[in-house]
């Protein structure tokens, strides 16, 4: 579904954020990307739908080469759901309008069809009662669930999550993770940047560990948690799982 081959990215000639990264995500697979801050994991996931351009390497999604795409890029992006750390709902639009914008403009659905779909997805994330509210009136956890619904209304072929729970208060993390677990169980292809190792253990097929712009480890979940090969991954895990 997603292939990333020899991808490198520089922010300026001297600072390299991604170093020759290669990995892939199969259809129906859930891949968790973890690593210390500044390791390039958020940058990597944003290269998949070309929100971050890369200087070297090839990325494909569903057989289409993202890295050389120009005109059809918006169309491809509409089929790749993305959830951000800070939700990024459109604050000037009601919840239901947040969910309708992409459907009507990009997919050309009628207002009625778009609204029906929006309400269906809101029901799914348990927020039907909030349809007519504005994002600012919702809690962080609710906003993030709306953000997931906003991605789902576009009928995505895969979903990218960029630290979806990092900006949330602890008591709200689970309501978001529950929705994600549900999605994973339904067979959605997912690439998830997160520090939630509980989530990784529960639903991930594979875990990718990044450090300093490199993919240091790319292993099946049980291998990763059981016996990480690299020393850096061992250190990371011992720190993050210490409590």
């Amino acid at each position, binding site marked *: 579904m997603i292939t990333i081959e020899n991808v490198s990215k520089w922010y300026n000639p001297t600072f390299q954020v991604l170093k020759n990264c290669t990995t892939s995500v199969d259809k129906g697979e859930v891949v968790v990307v973890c690593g210390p801050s500044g390791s390039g994991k958020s940058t990597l996931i*944003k290269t998949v*739908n070309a*929100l971050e351009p890369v200087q070297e390497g090839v990325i494909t999604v569903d057989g289409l080469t993202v890295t050389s795409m120009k005109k059809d890029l*918006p*169309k*491809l*992006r*509409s*089929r*790749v*759901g*993305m959830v*951000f750390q*800070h939700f*990024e*709902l*459109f*604050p*000037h639009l009601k919840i239901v309008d947040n969910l309708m*914008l*992409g459907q009507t*403009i*990009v*997919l050309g659905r009628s207002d009625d069809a778009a609204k029906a779909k929006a309400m269906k997805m809101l029901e799914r994330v348990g927020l039907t009662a909030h349809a007519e509210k*504005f*994002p*600012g*009136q919702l809690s962080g956890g609710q906003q993030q669930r709306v953000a997931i619904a*906003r*991605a789902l209304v*576009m009928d995505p072929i895969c979903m990218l999550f960029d630290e979806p729970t990092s900006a949330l208060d602890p008591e709200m993390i689970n309501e978001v993770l529950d929705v994600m677990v549900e999605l994973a169980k339904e067979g959605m292809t997912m690439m998830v940047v997160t520090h939630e190792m509980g989530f990784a253990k529960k639903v991930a097929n594979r875990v990718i560990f990044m450090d300093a712009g490199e993919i240091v480890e790319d292993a099946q979940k049980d291998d990763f948690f059981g016996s990480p090969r690299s020393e850096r991954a061992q250190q990371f895990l011992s720190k993050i799982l210490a409590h």
Partner: protein
Amino acid sequence: MFADFDFNVIWRSLPYLFREGMTFTLTLTAIATVGGLILGTLVALMRLSSNAVLSTFAASYVNLMRSLPLVLVIFLFYFLMPYIGQWILRADAPVQVGAYTSTIITFTLFEAAYFSEIMRAGIQSIPRGQVMAGYAIGLNYREVTRHVVLPQAFRNMLPVIFTQTIVLFQDTSLVYVLSITDFLGAASKVAQRDGRLTEMYLFAAVVYFAICFTASFFVKRLQKRISIIR
């Protein structure tokens, strides 16, 4: 102390002051605001564009307009516009533009520079994540600008835009240099015809103050009402 004054002159000239003078003042303010906003938004988008030619042109335009006194620009355009018109239309002789049309074009172009700076600040105040989110659901640059960035930018900027419009309303009085009958121009003409300078200018001051003060009051109320809950 007002014994020597004849305030009746105001009463007598009211129809002329408002029907002719204020009508032009308000028309000029309205056209320059709407035109300046549209043009200013375009200039702001050009200035923020990654295209070096567009952004340099926009920046030069804004800097030029903001570095010249408005009175000078009004004069300059009044004398230059016939020749510019001749050049654009490839006419044989300078095109007669007239003081009214000339001031309307001048104010629109001049205000565009100021509005573009307001719009630029408004556009830049929208977090990058909002743009990313727009792109992520498949919107293109134009759609993100139209549906995500500009509505938020306008809302953030509305109070500043209205305040600028109030300033513009006052600045329109500068058209007196072309002897146009705006509100102040009308008052001035009556004042000189009847020799009642103090009364007329005092009255004009009261009217300008009343309008601007009331408008500012409503801008403040509006500011509270439209602010987006974040």
